[in-house]
């Protein structure tokens, strides 16, 4: 047999009915050919190992993972991808059903989900719920909790008629747009594969980079020989520690402790040691293996309880006994509080070390623009502004010279809330090579980069009176931090500060130790630090209720937080309908009939939680400027600059509105909610509003999607900017009608004179006239959290917020008493998120949080071997819930109004996670 030695072969692929002749390498997968060579990027790469299903295509009508097909084997078959589903500019009914049922959040799983569903409905036009679950069991979704996906597939036929309306909704809103379950503004892009995520972008002359990670958990780098890698054809640049700035980076200014690439020392398996930049990923990968590194291995420590012992290996000189953060908070007097108690119980709990696992892997692209002095970075990030800030610091260039572009983000959950090595390496390497640079993490690298949930070792003690009234709470928590600080200081503070927000606790002490270990750094995962202590607290409260013979809901009502309260740790609670959520969830779940009367193997339980609606203070202190220009300013109890800023710009013909705000759409629905607030305030239809939130050159600063801040803070900025537009627009109109501006109102795309119905002008007409006489019609608005938030003690800033959310959940499960397997059957949830802007989006967040929280509780955990290697850095072995595992969910809302929020709204995404982890 003749040995073929040719690099490529020509294959003819028939995709969506069109033939493509492509030169492919033998080992190339269909997925890589679709995305890389044909630029059909609607098909996504999530895990590359055939688990996540984001790469699903149809081959002769059968759904298959395109990452498990060699392109060479695909000649002569019909391949269908997401790009071919909408025909002649018309969406397929299934796509319309996904849009209208709210089956989309981040949209990264959506193309694969639709392909699998399409294969099903072609065989079986009216599938049952079981059949849908079976057909979609190979498509993971991290955002939606699957509920609305099932509904969308079940009801797709309703959308065969092009005029069919969105599903009935029970929205009882006094407003035209706000308070209504509008379909997402980005949904059509996401169901067609048009939505371009960071890794989907391509620039001419682009180079690709890969990172060499440390194979050992702790050691000194003695020698690096990259000559063989540099000599490999196609390799353009090899970077090691000596090639990157000496400036450290991180999240909290007090603990910047990471270098772009390790300078002398590696501290965990996965630490970044070198980077190769080459003409393609494959060459870069191959070159990594040619870099020779000599390490002097140092003893490592993996358990925080060992790491704090004298004589344990030290990770950083600056963190004595490996204690990275120590918190000692004491409010009231716990000695007195416990002395007053009739009953005291103390227990220990451990909270899982889990990982966000957004379906979209981290990715960055960088190039230098203009005369080469302007850095442009495309990044899959929750926090474009902080990426900008950190790039300015490490590269030591003005913030103004950096443009961050944030394409749609395929899920984040806190895992993309800090500047990544990819952002930094692409920026540095593209400067050196003068070419655009792209880097994308593999799923394994995502795990190595880490920033997942801290494992927490918790001891809680609660004292109560006979009636269950809490007199004192004490907690001592050790957080396993991993090798760097990341968000960890904040995590350690949040682990304590959120406890007194839910219940009235007169006396409270919290001691927290965040400890360094030779593992990937832990960071801010959905609920940042708060969920596990909440789990511990809620469990202990249930135990105490049992011990005293009090119903678990009763003991909560006895202690529940009231509105307009200052907590013992100086947090200002405004709206709070916590009690209502307890009462509603008890009623809806049939609690009183079920609690303690279910047969063996069935269980019912309650857990509660809540969270901030945006951190009260920015992550860095002082002004918006490069941190090297100035030392951190002393802390003042007010926001130095506005945390959210918006510009509302009206098109010259008056018919369209462009909303500019850097708020990050990461799947949670920020773009839709902010557009709704804009439309409502302006009095125009939602479809007239377009939001541009991607580009820091275009949109004004917003701190990003973390600490559940977007709806409240971004929403306020948008409402103000919109009112600013109206103020300007009303001036000439009121002049025309000889009345005051306050006599005018804008709604239904018109401007009315309130007391004279005959006086009315089309909104667009008025705006056009404004432009003719005054030039551009533009409004601006901004939001600063209220001044003076928080107390005067060290760490008082963490936990402050303009508003807090509340909620209660009842969970019902079945336990296989012989194998111990837990099946979570049903969740009933009621949430106080203020007055929702988009109820469907709220329910979507709750459902997603249920499934993530339930998964974290019963099947997720990162596992290490004794040398610090992760044993399950893939979606085969790190288990996310599939559609078949997800429970039935009821998500309900209680009436609430948050005075500090736009149209009375506050957060939902993170608070929900807390209760599902602890229920």
């Amino acid at each position: 047999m003749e040995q073929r030695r040719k690099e490529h072969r020509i294959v003819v692929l028939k995709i969506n009915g069109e033939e493509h002749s492509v030169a492919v390498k033998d080992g190339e997968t269909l997925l890589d050919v679709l995305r890389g060579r044909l630029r059909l990027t609607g098909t996504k790469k999530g895990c590359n190992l055939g688990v996540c299903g984001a790469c699903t295509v149809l081959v002769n009508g059968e759904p298959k993972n395109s990452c498990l097909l060699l392109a060479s084997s695909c000649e002569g078959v019909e391949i269908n991808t997401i790009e071919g589903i909408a025909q002649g500019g018309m969406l397929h009914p299934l796509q319309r059903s996904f849009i209208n049922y709210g089956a989309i959040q981040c949209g990264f799983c959506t193309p694969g989900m639709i392909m699998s569903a399409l294969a099903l409905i072609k065989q079986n036009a009216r599938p049952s719920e079981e059949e849908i679950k079976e057909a979609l069991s190979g498509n993971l979704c991290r955002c939606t909790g699957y509920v609305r996906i099932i509904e969308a597939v079940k009801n797709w036929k309703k959308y065969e008629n092009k005029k069919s309306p969105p599903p009935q909704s029970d929205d009882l809103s006094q407003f035209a747009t706000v308070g209504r379950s509008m379909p997402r503004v980005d949904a059509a892009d996401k169901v067609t594969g048009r939505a371009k995520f960071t890794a989907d972008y391509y620039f001419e002359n682009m180079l690709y980079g890969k990172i060499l990670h440390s194979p050992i958990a702790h050691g000194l780098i003695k020698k690096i020989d990259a000559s063989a890698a540099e000599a490999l054809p196609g390799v353009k640049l090899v970077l090691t520690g000596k090639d990157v700035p000496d400036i450290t980076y991180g999240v909290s200014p007090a603990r910047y402790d990471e270098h772009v690439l390790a300078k002398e020392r590696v501290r965990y398996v996965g630490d970044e040691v070198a980077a190769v930049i080459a003409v393609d990923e494959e060459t870069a990968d191959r070159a990594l293996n040619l870099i020779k590194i000599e390490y002097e291995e140092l003893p490592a420590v993996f358990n925080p309880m060992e790491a704090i012992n004298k004589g344990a290996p030290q990770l950083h000189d600056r963190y004595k006994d490996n204690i990275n953060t120590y918190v000692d908070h004491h409010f009231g007097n716990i000695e007195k509080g416990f002395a007053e108690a009739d009953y005291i119980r103390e227990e220990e709990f451990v909270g899982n070390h889990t990982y966000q696992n957004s379906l979209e892997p981290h990715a960055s692209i960088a190039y230098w623009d203009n005369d080469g002095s302007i850095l442009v970075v495309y990044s899959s990030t929750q926090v474009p502004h902080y990426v900008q800030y950190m790039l300015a610091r490490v590269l030591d260039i003005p913030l103004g010279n950096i443009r961050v572009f944030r394409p749609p983000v395929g899920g984040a959950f806190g895992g993309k809330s800090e500047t990544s090595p990819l952002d930094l390496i692409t920026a540095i390497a593209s400067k050196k090579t003068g070419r655009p640079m792209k880097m994308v993490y593999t799923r394994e690298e995502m795990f190595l980069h880490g920033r997942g949930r801290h494992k927490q070792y918790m001891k809680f003690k609660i004292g109560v009176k006979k009636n269950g009234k809490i007199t004192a709470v004490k907690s001592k928590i050790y957080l396993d931090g991993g090798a760097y600080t990341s968000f960890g200081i904040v995590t350690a503070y949040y682990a304590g500060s959120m406890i007194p927000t839910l219940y009235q606790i007169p006396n409270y002490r919290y001691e927290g130790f965040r400890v360094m270990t030779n593992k990937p750094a832990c960071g801010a995962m959905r609920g940042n630090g708060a969920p596990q202590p909440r789990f511990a607290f809620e469990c202990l409260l249930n135990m105490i209720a049992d011990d005293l013979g009090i119903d678990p809901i009763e003991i909560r009502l006895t202690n529940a937080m009231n509105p307009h309260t200052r907590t013992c740790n100086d947090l200002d609670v405004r709206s709070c309908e916590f009690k209502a959520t307890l009462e509603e969830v008890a009623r809806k779940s049939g609690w009183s009939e079920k609690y303690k009367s279910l047969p063996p193997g069935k269980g019912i339980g309650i857990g509660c939680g809540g969270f901030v609606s945006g951190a009260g203070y920015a992550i860095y202190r002082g002004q918006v400027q490069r941190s090297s220009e100035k030392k951190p300013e002393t802390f003042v109890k007010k926001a130095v600059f506005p945390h959210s800023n918006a510009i509302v710009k009206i098109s010259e013909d008056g018919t369209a509105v462009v909303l500019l705000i850097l708020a990050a759409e990461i799947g949670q629905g920020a773009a839709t909610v902010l557009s709704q607030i804009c439309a409502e305030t302006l009095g125009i239809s939602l479809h007239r509003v377009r939001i541009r939130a991607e580009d820091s050159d275009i949109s004004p600063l917003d701190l990003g999607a973390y600490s559940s801040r977007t709806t409240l803070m971004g929403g306020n900025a948008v409402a103000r900017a919109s009112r600013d537009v109206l103020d300007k627009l009303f001036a000439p109109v009121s002049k025309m009608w000889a009345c005051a501006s306050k006599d005018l109102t804008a709604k239904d795309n018109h401007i009315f004179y309130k007391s004279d119905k005959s006086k009315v002008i089309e909104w667009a007409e008025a705006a056009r006239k404004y432009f003719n006489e005054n030039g551009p019609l533009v409004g601006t608005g901004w939001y600063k959290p209220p001044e003076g938030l928080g107390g005067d003690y060290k760490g008082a800033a963490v936990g402050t917020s303009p508003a807090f959310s509340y909620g209660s959940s009842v969970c019902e499960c079945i336990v296989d008493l012989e194998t111990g397997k837990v099946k979570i059957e049903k969740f009933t949830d009621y949430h106080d998120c203020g007055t929702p802007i988009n109820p469907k989006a709220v329910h979507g967040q709750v459902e997603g949080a249920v499934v993530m929280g339930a998964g974290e509780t019963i099947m997720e955990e990162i596992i290490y071997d004794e040398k610090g290697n992760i044993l399950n850095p893939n979606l085969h072995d790190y288990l996310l819930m599939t559609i078949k595992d997800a429970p039935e969910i009821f998500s309900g809302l209680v009436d609430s109004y948050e005075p500090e929020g736009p149209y009375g709204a506050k957060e939902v995404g993170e608070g929900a996670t807390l209760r599902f982890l602890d229920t």
Partner: protein
Amino acid sequence: MTLSNIVYYEPRTLTEIFKLLKGLNSVRVMAGGTDLLVDLKQGLIDTRNIISLHKIRELKGIEKKNNTIKIGALTSIQEIISNSLINQHIPALADAAKSMASHQVRSLATIGGNICSAVPSADLPPPLIAAEATVDLKCLGSSREVPLSDFFRGPRETICRKEELLTSIFIPLQPPNTGMSYKKFTPREATALAVASVAASLTLKNGVIAKAVIVLGAVAPTPVMALKASKSLTTKEPSEDSFQETALTAKEESKPISDIRGSIWFRKELIYVLTRRALDEALSRAQGKLE
């Protein structure tokens, strides 16, 4: 990514395959590719050449001849699930197939691949061994038929020689009053490997168990027959007590390891539970109470 240097072959006849297998060094046969490509991407195995079977039509399909069901090695898992012969004659195999991975993977993966990958937790071998299946191993100019129970040598190791190809699987039709069952434990409902699994086959004659076969999966380097447990049931009347005792024996016979999916203790406990459940279901099927 060890996939980048692969040389891919797509022969159109069995003879071509046999010639390639003989002539090439560092070679792997690819059926569905769902194990092979994953292993290659993860660097778990290394190979220079891949021979794809997918152009060989004769390796696909399910047919009944005389008293045997023949399944071509290239038959996809999804086809096994929906095939009427399988559902009629050995529903436990369809159950095992249904429990595997996801729809997408099942429409790629094949029965031959599931057997030849020889992963200890593979789902199809236990029910196939319980049904006393044999496999046909062919090479240039010769062929041999071996019982599947003799096929596995260790994790990812089989008796299949480098120049040989597993072409088909033969399952004898089960005697009357025979029932089979496959039970497995996974931590989630889809796309999860078995932590432990049990296939059981019972043949009844005049109310007593004439023959019993119990096969354990994921608790030894290969799927194994629980010989003592199987024997302990013959000539006995099926009862809760006898099944319980047999399950305890099966548990003793299992030799699992501890890994991220489960500890030795947990796996042994699972074998006890799963054996009982498999026997219960096999009995119902043998008595015609199911389906």
